[in-house]
Structure formats: structure tokens, C-alpha cells
């Protein structure tokens, strides 16, 4: 990976930061922050689902672990928010490695893998809804206390900036995947596991590495979510909503592409917000829009929004498409 490879992530960060500081209203700034959080969750999902062809229905397991970890550490141990962030990411990654170890050891793929991840997330949701350490059904509240070390800002533009920087870092991570042997092996496994093995690829280890990275990235989204709303409960942390949004954003944006999850998150949440405004806030109407967009994407732009740009510029890039197909075939 060269410095040039980091140019696009850098430009994206500058554009987004410019937007955050362009005098957006409070509502729009909140929307931007939320877009960044969902983008991060989807960027994590994309590493495993997009590059590795292993679609998970349970990324909530990682998101929730990140969210709970940082809030528990801060409220009960008085740890500072940044240390909580690091711990949340590490623990989320560890949960990913654990689920990966169990599933990949037994050779789970396709819908079996998707269902097992969903099962893990649901178990965590039910457990955290009753366990004392997670505050039971009441959840955990983080007291308001502005300060850089607390990762809480009176001026929410700073929080937006931090979220944007993390999105930029995740973009760079994805770029590295596209430029490294590890990434090439991961894509090879997605395309044909047997052929990859024949070429010396340790399929188990590469998958394990991918789910660990993927989980860490989505756990970071969970940390930021908890930090942004100063609250987490079982539904928010481990509920299926985040698994679905991460997956939707990645697929709609373009599987296995660097910008796909970011573009997908912005498009989905942007349209969802517009629909809510137009419809006068009918509950659940944004979910309806999400579903419709997903169906339209899979039917007409199977490579996701990013493939539209490539179609226009005439560059052939079949990766996202095959990822989607292999997922259906698995």
C-alpha cells in the first residue's frame, strides 16, 4: 500500500469534515453522526460479507459488545472513554474471533453461517436483558460530562469529526485489503474455497482474521453509538436492527468495495429521513423504504450503488456482483 492509496480516504474525510463544519442544523448534524456510525458498522460487515463472501445476520453481537463494554467500564470502573473505546473494540473483535472459531472450525458457510451469527446475537440480547452487569432491562446510562477524555462534546461537531476520522480509518483499512495478500486471499476464498486451498491459502486462518477485523470495526460503531446517545440497552446493543442496517448499507452501496458501505449508509439513512419528513413521521415507514431499496438494488444494480459509477465510466469490476451471487448460491 502506498501513500497514493490513502488519497481517496483522505478526500472523503475532508469532504465529510467540511460538511460537518458547514453550519448544519442540529438535526442534520445528528443525522450525519448517525450516518457515520452506521457506515462504520457496515464497513465492518463488508470486510467479512463483501470481501469474504460470508454474510452475517448477527453483527449486532459485535456492535453491542462494543457499546456495553465502554459504558460498563466507564460507569462502574471509572475508566476514561478512550480506554473504554479501545477495550470495546478489542472485546468486540474477541467475540468475533470466538464466533468465527466455532463456525469456521465446523465449516459453516452460507445460510448456516448467517443463522448461527444471528443465534449468537440473539443469545447475547436475551442475556444482556436480564444480567445485572448490563443493567438488565433498564440498560445503562452514562452521565453527561463534557470533555475530550470523556468523548463527550458540548459542540457536537467535534464528535462528528471523530466519527468521520474513524470512518476514514476504516476506508484506509479496506484499501489495504484491496492491496494486500491477506485481502487477495480473502477474495479468493469468497470466489472458490477449494481453489484457494490448492494454492496454499489457510482458509480457516484467513476467515478467522477477517471476522476479527470485521467485528472490531463494527464494535467501534457500537462504542460511538453508546458514546453519542449516552445510553444502551439490550435492544439497542444486540437487537437485529443494527445487523440489518449494516448488511443493507453494505449491499446497497456495493459489496466488496471501499466506498460501498459509506455510500450505502448515507443513501439509506438520507432517504429514510426524507421519507419520515414527507410522511409526517409514520412509525416504521423508513424500514419500508429500506426494504424497497434493497429489493430494487438486488434486482437492478446487483453490484450496488458503487457499480453505477463504474458502469458510467466503463470500468469493469465484477467483484460485488459475484459476492452477492455466491451468497445466494451458498
Amino acid at each position, binding site marked *: 500500500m502506498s501513500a497514493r492509496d490513502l488519497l481517496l480516504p483522505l478526500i472523503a474525510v475532508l469532504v465529510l469534515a467540511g460538511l460537518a463544519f458547514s453550519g448544519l442544523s442540529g438535526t442534520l448534524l445528528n443525522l450525519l453522526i448517525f450516518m457515520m456510525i452506521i457506515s462504520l458498522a457496515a464497513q465492518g460487515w463488508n470486510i467479512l460479507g463483501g470481501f469474504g463472501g460470508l454474510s452475517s445476520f448477527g453483527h449486532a453481537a459485535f456492535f453491542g459488545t462494543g457499546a456495553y463494554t465502554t459504558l460498563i467500564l466507564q460507569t462502574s470502573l471509572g475508566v476514561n472513554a478512550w480506554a473504554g473505546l479501545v477495550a470495546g473494540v478489542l472485546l468486540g473483535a474477541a467475540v468475533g474471533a470466538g464466533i468465527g472459531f466455532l463456525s469456521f472450525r465446523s465449516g459453516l458457510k452460507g445460510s448456516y453461517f448467517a443463522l448461527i451469527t444471528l443465534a449468537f446475537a440473539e443469545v447475547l440480547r436475551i442475556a444482556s436483558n436480564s444480567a445485572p452487569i448490563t443493567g438488565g432491562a433498564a440498560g445503562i446510562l452514562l452521565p453527561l460530562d463534557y470533555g475530550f477524555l470523556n468523548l463527550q462534546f458540548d459542540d457536537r461537531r467535534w464528535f462528528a469529526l471523530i466519527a468521520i476520522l474513524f470512518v476514514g480509518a476504516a476506508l484506509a483499512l479496506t484499501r489495504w485489503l484491496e*492491496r*494486500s*495478500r491477506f485481502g*487477495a*486471499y480473502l*477474495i*479468493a476464498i469468497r*470466489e*472458490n474455497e*477449494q*481453489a*484457494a*486451498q*490448492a*494454492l*496454499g*491459502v*489457510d*482458509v480457516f486462518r484467513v476467515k478467522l482474521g477477517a471476522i476479527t477485523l470485521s467485528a472490531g470495526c463494527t464494535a467501534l460503531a457500537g462504542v460511538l453509538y453508546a458514546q453519542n446517545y449516552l445510553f444502551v440497552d439490550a435492544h439497542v446493543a444486540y437487537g437485529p436492527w443494527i445487523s440489518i442496517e449494516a448488511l443493507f448499507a453494505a449491499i446497497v452501496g456495493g459489496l466488496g468495495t471501499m466506498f460501498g458501505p459509506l455510500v450505502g449508509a448515507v443513501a439509506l439513512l438520507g432517504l429514510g429521513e426524507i421519507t419520515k419528513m414527507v410522511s409526517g413521521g409514520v412509525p416504521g415507514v423508513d424500514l419500508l423504504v429500506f426494504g424497497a431499496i434493497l429489493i430494487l438494488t438486488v434486482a437492478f444494480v446487483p453490484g450496488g450503488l458503487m457499480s453505477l459509477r463504474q458502469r458510467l465510466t466503463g470500468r*469493469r469490476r*465484477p*467483484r460485488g*456482483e*459475484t*459476492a452477492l451471487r455466491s451468497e445466494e448460491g451458498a
Partner: protein
Amino acid sequence: MLSVDGLTKRFSGLVAVDDASLAAPEGRITGLIGPNGAGKTTLFAMAAGFLTPDAGTVTFAGEDVTAEPPHLRARRGMARTFQIVQPFAGLTVRENIAVGAHLHHPSRAEAMERADAIGKRVGLAKDLDRAAAGLTVAGRKRLELARALATQPKLLLLDEVLAGLNPSEIRDILPVIRAIRDEGVTILMIEHIMQAVMNLCEHVYVLAQGKMIAEGPPIEVSRDPQVVEAYLGHGAAARMQAAGGADA
């Protein structure tokens, strides 16, 4: 380089490979022939670690690798092609070959460069930027060979890489295979095209119904009555039928 001893594989009742042994000596091209369904591909799969034998051992470069998974055997220098081609369909030809090259070249740029060189060598120069899914049958066979070659193997297991190629394409690829051998790569090849076997192999083994029934120089083996019966019997029967049909 490679020897398999007493390999046996059963598929629920059917004995696909039955106590078969062979050796592929270093620096040679050894052939494995036999009628359809003889168990040749199954034997390869056990040699490369994709199937676990029910009995027997696989020895590679003096070490027993019977229990080793395929990727470790690949790292030792064993590369196989698949009779039913297994391309990374969504990737370009260059990217396909680069996955093989990555085994000894961690850098992406280097792997891509190696892929270019190897692609050109097997006759895929103008297809390097195409999606592997868009290749012809012959192109896919070449890609199998190129990817295996890219791992810089000591031993190449080629499973019918010439099948589906037309006579002029076969003429083009024979010298390539010979040149690979001349560089010191040991080759064990399954092949139905006798012209190629005669042309390339110093020694051939004949597998029929899972059993190794003959071995020796190709000319001698092709005259062995047991082989003619087991192996060429198929073709002869078909020819007789065709002749009968023409007469009527």
C-alpha cells in the same frame, strides 16, 4: 518426489481407488491413464490432500504427508489443477494467477508482475485483464495450469489440462509443459489424449476400476493386452458400434 502406497478410497460401497501405488520420480513427467471413472481424479485428490484415504500413505519429498491439509502440501511445493476447472470467476485472469503467486510473493505488485509473466508463458497474454468467467474452455484449462505454476511448485499434478483443447492448441502447450519439466519441476499428469502421453511421458501408470493394472514406458503399456482390454476396450467397443451403425 511423490509416492503413494496402497491408497484406497471408498465412497459408500463403491471402491473408487483400490490399493493403488505409484511413484513420480524427480524431474520426470509421469503419466496416469485409465478409462473414465477409473479413480484417477480421486487418487489425485488424495495425493493433494483434498480427500482422506481410507488406507495407504502419501509421501512427498521423503516426508509422510498423508494427514496434512491441502494448503500445507501446497506450501511444501505440491500444486494441482482441477479437472473440473475452479476459477475465481469474478476476478480477472491476472488476479487469479496472482493468488498463486502470492504463496512466495507477499507484495501485491510483485505477485501481479509474476502473474503477467506466467500468463504470457501459458498463452493467456491477451486475456490477462478479462474476467476468468469469460474465458473459453481452453482458456480455463490454461488458467488452471498458470495458477498452479505461479506457486513455484516442485511437483505439478495436472488433471486433464489438455482436454477441450483443439489439436493446434495442444501442439502449442506441449512444449510449455516440457519446458516446465526442464526447469526441474516434477510432473504427474492424468491424460486421455494418447498422442500427448506418448509425446511427454517417460513412464505411465494405468488405473482401471480403482486398481493399478500396468506401468511402464507408454509404448509398451499401450501394447499390454490387459491394458488394451481394460482401457482401449471402451474405445474399441464404441468403434465397433459405430461401424455397425454405418453398415446398416
